């Protein structure tokens, strides 16, 4: 319970312990701690940067996608327009062609009609001449006359 020489022994021990800690223990472990702290801080900063970059690239990807979509819509639109245009052109061409063909056909018909008329008139004329020839060759009775005329009519009717 009393103070005695132990006091000095303890003081020497204490001083030695403090010296030992200061010389061999404290700086080494604190350095390890600080180094790790720096490492962790660096790692966290890198992770933050990575996150930021990811965000940026995601945004860019979104933008690109958006642009591409718009472009695709444009392309489809244009194609539609072109298709319509081509269709219209083809339709117009077909119509003119059809009109021309119809016109040609009409003209042909008119010509054919004309030709037929002409041929008919010629034939009629020839038949009249023939009939007249026959009449002139035979005695004409009323009977014969009737027959001839009906023949003639029949002929004309047939040829018509």
């Amino acid at each position, binding site marked *: 319970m009393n103070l005695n020489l132990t006091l000095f022994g303890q003081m020497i021990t*204490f001083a030695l312990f403090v010296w030992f800690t200061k010389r061999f*223990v404290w700086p080494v472990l604190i350095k390890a701690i600080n180094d790790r702290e720096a490492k962790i801080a660096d790692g966290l900063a890198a992770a933050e940067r990575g996150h930021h970059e990811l965000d940026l690239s995601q945004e860019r990807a979104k933008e690109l996608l958006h642009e591409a979509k718009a472009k695709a819509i444009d392309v489809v639109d244009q194609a539609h327009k072109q298709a319509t245009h081509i269709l219209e052109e083809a339709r117009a061409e077909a119509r003119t062609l059809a009109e021309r063909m119809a016109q040609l056909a009409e003209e042909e018909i008119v010509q054919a009609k004309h030709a037929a008329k002409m041929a008919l008139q010629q034939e009629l004329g020839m038949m009249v001449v023939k009939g007249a020839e026959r009449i002139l060759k035979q005695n004409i009775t009323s009977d014969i006359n009737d027959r001839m005329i009906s023949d003639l009519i029949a002929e004309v009717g047939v040829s018509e």
Partner: protein
Amino acid sequence: MSSEALDTTQYVHHHLTNLPWTHAFLQKKLGDFGVINLDSLIVSFILGSVILLLFYFLARRATSGVPSKLQNFVEILFEFIQKQVKETFHGNNPLIAPLALTIFVWILLMNLMDLIPIDLFPMLLKTAGVPYWRMVPTTDLNVTFAMSLTVFFLILYYSVKEKGAVGFAKELLMHPFPYVWMAPINLPLSIIHELAKPVSLALRLFGNLFSGEVIFILIALFPIWWLQWILGFPWAIFHILIIGIQAFIFTILTIVYLSLAHESH
């Protein structure tokens, strides 16, 4: 009855007696002061050496990468001390943190010896022929005063070093009353103020641990085993708290006192 009372007294006395060692020459020159408490010296030295060697080997294998569990645990302790020093001590002195760490772990370990059953080591060593053995060094005033006086000398050293002899003398003479003519009153007040630091540090630690020890001894005197358990167990749990708190208070006050030594008022 009287023999039983004597036994009890002897038991308590036995538990509160250090293992003495002395030399005829020391005894003649210094009287009672010439004694050395071997148990205090041995236990405290073993405890301090073990923990510091553990720290030393950990420090040698310390990595700034992923730490081992033990390194991690010790690092928590180091960072705890470093935080306390950083918060309290604003100067730049590489001694403060290692000093605080040494004080904290050493006192903590010495206090922890209080939780070992009080009869265990004295009885074991008695069979080996050792008559007395006190297992808790911090219940010896010599141990607590050794630390507080060392801290006191550091306070004086850094006060003079940081403020200069004149600055320190001025502080002693001009506080707490800032008038020159009050210096004769200021000086004794300042001296008491300074001396109170080591005395309070040492006595606080000693008082807490000594009283705890005495209560453990008294509990051990109860003749019924389950009563010992009922009283001893809560007291031990409560004591765990005291052990840590006393180590912490000594450490923090050391930092504060040394911080004051570095700052002029």
